[in-house]
């Protein structure tokens, strides 16, 4: 039995997350997917680490400045 701490969420937490999302995954599928999830979790951690102040949401693109002269 390994004493090393699992990166990110535990497998049990991961199972609960997948159940909540309705993904219906087997234990083997969960174990296979978790390393990739941990990799993607680095992206979400970055997003939550930024001090965005009062920044609003961008949603879809909308030009915030006048069109180029060619347009």
């Amino acid at each position, binding site marked *: 039995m390994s004493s090393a701490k699992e990166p990110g969420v535990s497998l049990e937490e991961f199972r609960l*997350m*997948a159940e909540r*999302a*309705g*993904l*219906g*995954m087997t234990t083997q599928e969960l174990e*296979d*997917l978790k390393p*990739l*999830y941990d*990799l*993607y979790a*680095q*992206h*979400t951690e*970055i*997003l*939550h680490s*930024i001090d*965005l102040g009062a*920044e*609003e*949401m*961008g*949603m*879809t*693109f909308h*030009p*915030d*400045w006048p*069109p*180029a002269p*060619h*347009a």
Partner: protein
Amino acid sequence: MATTNADLHYLTISQAGALLQRQELSPVELTRAFLNRIEATNDQLHSFITILSEQALADARVAEAEILQGHYKGPMHGIPFALKDLYDTAGIRTTSGSQVDIDRVPAEDATTTARLKNAGGILLGKLAMHEYALGGPDFTTPFAPARNPWNLDHITGGSSSGSGAAVASGQCMGALGSCTGGSIRGPASLCGIVGIKATYGRVSRAGVVTLSWSQDHCGPMTWTVEDAAHMLGAIAGYDPRDPTTSAAPVPNYAAGLKQDNQNIRGVTIGVPRHFFFAADGGANPETLAAVEKGLTVLEGLGAHLEEVTIPSLEYVRAANTVIMLSEAFAFHEKNLKSRANEFGEMVRARFRIGGLLTASDYVQAQRVRKLFNRELAQTFQKVDVLVTPTMTQPAAAFEGYDATSTVRGPSFTAPFNLSGLPAISVPAGFTASGLPIGLQVAGKPFDEPGIFRVAYAYEQATRWFDQRPPFM
């Protein structure tokens, strides 16, 4: 109509168009040359999923009759093209590269499909792609991954993999790709061709299978900048079927190139070195060296280089990814839950991760998007375009390919999907091992003429397009 000699498949759209207009080349002969080329090469390239030989020849005969009767429609008339297999084609299977949609036959053309056909284009077939425009080369889907004509042991990049391989190998004169994080410019760069995604809203997405509503773009992949201008001109413009399209008039992009006469004197080029050229940024040294040379070429043509800083660039990959996977899960949720085993391994895993992201993740990503757009707007008050490498690396080999490589490290293309700004990739040379390198030009909203102008000047000065793949 007269019949010309061999290597018709290496004509550009502009060259062929001139011959077709003068009735010195028959659309039927031209189409037959491309069908022969596909037949001779597709077993090795795996770029076409569906080949429409009979229909293409029938359409070519119609185009021939129209031209002979004096009804020449314009630069796409009689031009053989192909579509990434997520563009709907009425009555023709459209699979998105997936077992899930293996038998899907749309009743209606995508707007872009219809516009190219109405412009007189000859549809040769449907092209391979990464499943549902995500992931990478996946041998667990029904279709073999497309191979790079510059080295068949290497990937094409994606997700418009077949589009890159087909144009680079002379299987078609132009193709449409689609792009959510770089899927047009990426394979264009790795296959040594031109690829452009216009401003979000410039080209209709109606009838194109969704990956991420707010980041998907449609656009052409061609051998030259001028050809890309011709194709974009044919598909751009307002579409009542796509409420995000702009009603702004569509300029004549190709005519603009000639008017400017390759002159970029006085153009200010922004260079965000802190992100795209950082020594520890993970980019390939040969790629960086080639694009540095490109900047020198542009400076020699009269452009002014100005180093710019866009701090939030370092968050863009995360925001692009979270938005893309969240929206993709929403689009594919029903099938993912009821037919999971019909997805390839790579996409199934990524879509499932989309289902594990939270609303808070998505909102944070959208706030980063707003921040990034504001910083870009400030930057574009000082510069006309940005010039960067298109990709961090040249085409990887299939052997030992790391499927997570696209998750790690920065993306040089995603910033312009997140922002919706126009961006083009143009060939910028080769690595020592002969793999193509791309240079990216990005611009202000709806300033496709501006990025075409810089890309065209660079292309004409360097003429990398004179080199064709050693393949056949």
